[in-house]
């Protein structure tokens, strides 16, 4: 791995991968625990609409994708608050509309765009210094918002109880939605639209299987996310495989290992109960 790290593009890929993994696995604990696993997919497809609009307008796609995805995220939360529709239904509507808009934007662009495919599947090895600066900015935002962890955790546990204790739950939902959107857009280049939701869901879900406290779940999710990014990147370099997909497969192996630990722990507890 050290040999690979002498290559500048691998250095950038590793730093970008670690930052995206940190962001996604940190916010992922709220996504998983609130039962919003589908939100990652929805926002990723909204990002696709934004990227396609950027390509059509001849602008930097991610600069257009950020406001586009944030707008979709705010719209999803707004509709959820004003209707009795289930979250998945609302996300499903915006997911499809964003994707349809993206397809139309691409079809309006007369010349063929290979770029669109790099955003679908990610291109971690083509990360630029600008991408790194943007990712670092989003990490800084996450660290600045870190004192809100307690409020978000409280509302995740019991929304009504948090409201009754004057936690600004609605405002926090919008804020979390915006931060998630920005994270998803930053992650597009690293993992691609198709695989982003894995970064949000798998490390947090794996951590949930083996912990008893939400604080531990948060730390473990970040650890799983960042270590799978580092080792997945190394594995993809060694085996000449797509980096985003290799990282996701590693995340899945961690999930399976946690599932094994859970099953074993329960079997041991049941054995003690019988004895």
């Amino acid at each position, binding site marked *: 791995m050290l040999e690979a790290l002498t290559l500048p593009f691998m250095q950038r890929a590793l730093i970008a991968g670690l930052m995206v993994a940190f962001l996604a696995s940190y916010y992922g604990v709220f996504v998983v625990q609130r039962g919003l696993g589908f939100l990652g997919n929805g926002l990723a497809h909204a990002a696709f609409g934004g990227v396609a609009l950027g390509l059509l307008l001849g602008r930097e796609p991610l600069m257009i994708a950020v406001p586009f995805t944030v707008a979709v995220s705010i719209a999803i939360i707004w509709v959820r608050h004003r209707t009795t529709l289930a979250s998945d239904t609302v996300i499903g509507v915006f997911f499809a509309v964003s994707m349809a808009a993206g397809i139309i934007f691409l079809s309006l662009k007369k010349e063929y765009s290979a770029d669109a495919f790099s955003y679908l599947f990610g291109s971690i090895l083509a990360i630029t210094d600008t991408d790194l600066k943007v990712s670092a900015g989003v990490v800084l935002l996450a660290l600045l918002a870190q004192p809100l962890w307690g409020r978000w955790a409280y509302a995740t546990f*019991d929304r009504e109880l948090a*409201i*009754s204790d*004057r*936690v600004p739950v609605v405002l926090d939902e919008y804020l979390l939605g915006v931060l998630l959107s920005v994270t998803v857009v930053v992650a597009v280049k690293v993992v691609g639209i198709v695989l982003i939701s894995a970064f949000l869901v798998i490390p947090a879900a794996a951590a949930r299987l083996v912990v008893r406290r*939400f604080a531990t779940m948060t730390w473990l999710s970040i650890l799983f996310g960042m270590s799978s990014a580092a080792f997945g990147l190394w594995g993809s370099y060694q085996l000449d495989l797509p980096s985003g997909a290799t990282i996701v497969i590693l995340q899945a192996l961690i999930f399976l290992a946690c599932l094994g630990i859970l099953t074993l722990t329960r079997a041991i507890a049941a054995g003690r109960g019988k004895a």
Partner: protein
Amino acid sequence: MHAVHTHNLSLFLGESQALADISCCVREGEFVAILGPNGAGKSTFLKVLLGVLEPSSGNVLVFEKKPREVDPAWIGYVPQAKTLDRNFPALATELVVTGLHRTWRRRISAADRTAALSALEMVGASHLADRPLSALSGGELQRIYLARSLARKPRLILLDEPATGIDTVGETDFYRLLARYRNEQNATILMITHNQEVASAHADRVMVLNRRLLGFGTPQETMCDECLQSAYGPAHHPLHLTDLRAGSHA
């Protein structure tokens, strides 16, 4: 001072009216039981007092302030057992500590743990302190919620069917604890229950609710055939206070 004062309180949830023209006063230190059939708006009424739901019209005052302006530390709330989430990764102590800090804590300090254990001891649940919420029964989890509420020493306790899942012995202890806390702190208690015996035995006054306020007075005044049948329908056979006292009911 009135702990709760509502005037023509009405609330629509979507297109259906959950509460209609409710006017009532609850004095500080009173124990009020709220009776009514399922879907009568009892839980909704408590959520209005908590400030979780805004009334569509009318006035609501809690300790002479609008619910959202009341110091949340003054109110302890125990939700219905069936609505509680046991899927959240947390230990019982952590939930009790939210009663002290009104946020989720990453770490539990020694002082917080001592305060949480003392509250758990009060409700006879100190043995559950380090259990994950997923390993608790509905009744046990409600006890933890009660400990969470008492930990902040509230002036008003709102209980939504708190005795569900508690056995008979536990129930006696539970009401004894409530009575002791109320006497020591001059706390006001509003408790939703389906148990008319409990309402008549422990409450100073009983509120009979079915979207509208159908009766509000002493147990003798409100738990009459006419009042209860207007809430539960003509098929309802109310228990008579004389029966309850003689223990002659099934």
